[in-house]
């Protein structure tokens, strides 16, 4: 019954979205307040019905209602509760429902917090947002309905893929989707502004929080996915340049570019048409990402939704929205005249450089991801583009970005002096060079990767610190530091996070130690400076799996460091084995142990890695997200968003 109600609520939400798409748009065109006012209640009702529908599906998963086809295919009664819940979006239909739920969530949020928006702009934004919703509601209802029943329900389900039964991965898709779909808001604002024919500083201020929120979610989502790959897949890799990963990385790069160019629109009323174009492209890449994952164009063995027919529908949605918006852009972009004047050396120019590097690096990822398809169709060559290509083609842009970042972040608006800014940053430069030199002398292999990464990391972090100190002035530093706007703190923290991540990736890649051997029971061996011994291997069972667990004692210079328990699991329902690496997390290194198969000699294959600075990769991502959050909580957005709050709460009153 609840399932049917959920289905019905979804259809209702679809209908409401159609109304919300059409009526406010006509209303805004003819300046009819009544018609425009339809958008707000419609957006909220659409969200409530979609949320109910999603809740109904989740209920079916939680209660293990195997008469629902989707539940029977993707769940099992013995599965832990967390994974019953996350199973709701661990499949194609459910994840598309989550997608559309987030589209309507953002629409509803805009209707609630958009009090300060001009009525016509608001009506148009909500109308465009509803149009995106309509496309995906239709897609779900007509091609991927999650509420279908089975005539003969089975006794038990077929279980969720065991690899997905993991806390990291349970929350990876929702964050990623919040990011992808958050960009739909920037898209809606861009299209609405094109229809309106007007972009000003206020528009930049409204667009930025949405982009920032989307970017924060994307950052967390990507970090979660990469962390999961690191500990779950058994060889400690964290980024593989897989098409599906690239699909999430491209919108992240463009969102980062967009949130920087929106600053220029907000502060200086320049770069308007470029910002609009970026907003369209960023969401376009979100749709391309969805298409790549859902269609199986590039990864034909993707476990779910490898259905060309559905892929074609998503391709059509992609073509209509991106193509339509670009056409509109071509027709109307001329109307966006730039106002601000600035010289070659200025914050504006630096932000242009930032956008240029981010956009071109996104382009490189895009070309590399699609090249195998192009080569096969156009040149009849079957070839691969894998990690070695991206490792060669992508980092140069990031190095350039990292070198320019601290300088650009401190250049004044309108007109700056490069030499003066460099002089302010002299301690950062000295520190970066010293760190690079230290890294060079300490490493045994003479590769450039480690020192360059260390130098960039130190440079960016010290640059961010210098920027903050500079702002705080000379006297009474501490209290003035504390009173800096949150946006300034956010900028420094996010930039420092990027520095930390760059350093960690370079350090881990350059300096990790690997050991592969047959480990016999109670026979000590040495990896790096650690003494390890496999003391026992036991069979056991968990809630829905069987396990073979090794016990590894680790010591260093005679004192105990850790006891590690690497596992091999078999999930009998899904008939799938998984490896659970045992990791000793420390601040400066991870000790990563994987248990392999039993050998005829009685020993076990064992792989041990010492991974320096591994945690810092995700620590840096967290810092970036935190910086975004700080910036998002800046007072000017609350004021701009029209939320009436006592100003005294925004800044400490003196």
């Amino acid at each position: 019954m609840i399932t049917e109600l959920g289905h019905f609520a979804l259809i209702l939400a679809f209908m409401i979205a159609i109304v919300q798409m059409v009526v406010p748009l006509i209303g805004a065109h003819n300046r009819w307040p009544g018609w425009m006012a339809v958008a707000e209640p419609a957006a909220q009702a659409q969200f409530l019905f979609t949320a109910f529908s999603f809740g109904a599906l989740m209920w079916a998963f939680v209660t293990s209602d195997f008469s629902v086809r989707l539940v029977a295919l993707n769940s099992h009664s013995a599965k832990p509760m967390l994974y019953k819940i996350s199973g709701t979006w661990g499949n194609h239909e459910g994840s598309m429902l989550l997608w559309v739920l987030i589209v309507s969530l953002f629409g509803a949020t805009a209707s609630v917090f958009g009090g300060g928006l001009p009525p016509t702009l608001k009506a148009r934004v909500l109308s465009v947002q509803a149009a995106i919703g309509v496309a995906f509601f239709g897609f779900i209802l007509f091609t991927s309905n999650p509420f279908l029943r089975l005539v003969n329900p089975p006794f038990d389900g077929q279980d969720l893929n065991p690899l997905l039964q993991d806390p990291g991965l349970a929350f990876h898709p929702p964050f990623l989707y919040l990011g992808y779909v958050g960009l739909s808001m920037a898209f809606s604002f861009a299209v609405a502004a094109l229809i309106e024919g007007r972009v000003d500083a206020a528009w930049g201020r409204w667009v930025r929080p949405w982009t920032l929120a989307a970017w924060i979610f994307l950052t967390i989502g990507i970090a979660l996915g990469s962390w999961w790959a690191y500990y779950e897949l058994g060889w400690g890799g964290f980024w593989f340049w897989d098409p599906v990963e690239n699909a999430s990385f491209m919108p992240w790069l463009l969102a980062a570019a967009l949130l920087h160019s929106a600053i220029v629109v907000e502060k200086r009323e320049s770069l308007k048409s470029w910002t609009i174009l970026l907003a369209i492209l960023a969401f376009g890449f979100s749709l391309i990402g969805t298409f790549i994952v859902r269609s199986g164009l590039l990864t034909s063995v993707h476990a779910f939704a490898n259905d060309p027919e559905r892929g074609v529908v998503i391709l059509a949605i992609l073509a209509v929205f991106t193509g339509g918006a670009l056409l509109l852009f071509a027709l109307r972009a001329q109307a966006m005249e730039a106002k601000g004047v600035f010289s070659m050396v200025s914050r504006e120019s630096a932000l242009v450089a930032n956008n240029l590097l981010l956009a071109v690096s996104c382009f490189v990822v895009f070309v590399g991801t699609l090249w195998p398809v192009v080569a096969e169709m156009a040149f009849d060559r079957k070839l691969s583009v894998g990690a070695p290509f991206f490792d060669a083609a992508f980092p140069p842009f990031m190095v350039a970005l990292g070198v320019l970042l601290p300088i650009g972040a401190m250049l004044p608006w309108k007109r700056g002096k490069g030499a003066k800014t460099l002089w302010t940053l002299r301690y950062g430069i000295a520190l970066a060079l010293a760190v690079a030199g230290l890294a060079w002398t300490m490493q045994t292999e003479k590769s450039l990767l480690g020192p360059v990464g260390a130098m960039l990391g130190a440079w960016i972090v010290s640059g961010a610190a210098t920027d903050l100190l500079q702002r705080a002035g000379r006297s009474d530093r501490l209290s003035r530091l504390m009173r800096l706007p949150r946006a300034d703190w956010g900028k420094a923290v996010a930039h420092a996070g990027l520095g930390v991540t760059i350093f960690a990736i370079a350090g881990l890649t350059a300096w990790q130690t690997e050991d592969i051997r047959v480990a016999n029971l109670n026979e000590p061996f040495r990896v790096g400076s650690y003494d390890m011994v496999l003391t026992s291997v036991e069979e056991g069972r968990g809630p829905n799996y069987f396990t073979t667990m090794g016990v590894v004692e680790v010591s260093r210079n005679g004192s105990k460091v850790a006891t590690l328990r690497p596992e091999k699991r078999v999930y009998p329902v899904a008939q799938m084995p998984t490896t659970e690496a045992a990791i000793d997390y420390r601040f400066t290194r991870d000790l990563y142990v994987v248990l392999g198969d039993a050998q005829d000699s009685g020993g076990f294959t064992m792989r041990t890695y010492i991974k320096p600075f591994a945690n810092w990769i995700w620590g840096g991502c967290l810092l970036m997200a935190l910086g975004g959050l700080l910036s998002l909580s800046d007072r000017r957005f609350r004021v701009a968003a029209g939320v009436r709050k006592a100003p005294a709460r925004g800044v400490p009153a003196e």
Partner: protein
Amino acid sequence: MIRFIKASLAILLLSLSPAYAVQPDEVLEDPVLEERARSLSEGLRCLVCRNESIDESNADLARDLRLLVRERLVAGDSDEEAVDFIVDRYGEYVLLKPTVRGANWILWAAGPMMLVLALLIALLYLRKRATAAGGAESNGLTEDEEARLKEILKD
């Protein structure tokens, strides 16, 4: 979800074969040769997997290829000869890092070309902004306003 396909396939193959990426018995005595073999393996694709190098893969075929690479190196091949040997037999599909031959120059040049193009456009734009509205010093004031501002500032 990201690595799901690869992982699920890898796991599927794992259940078929007991191998698990590079095995202790594959490792060569000579550490220099082994090092070369590892770095070559990272650039060769496991043909039955998706986007996975033979160095990471658990498939039997990947193991065969790893052994083949080591065989060639032990036989005295240079890195290029060993890779060519494998490409001759399995096609350029095994190369994770595509060559620059034929139309592939487009792939390799795409980034740098785009960068140059974007730089040109950006420079033109910046120059326009720097000279817009009659000189970089302009601040949007008319001449009268400018004169009045000077007067005020004089006081």
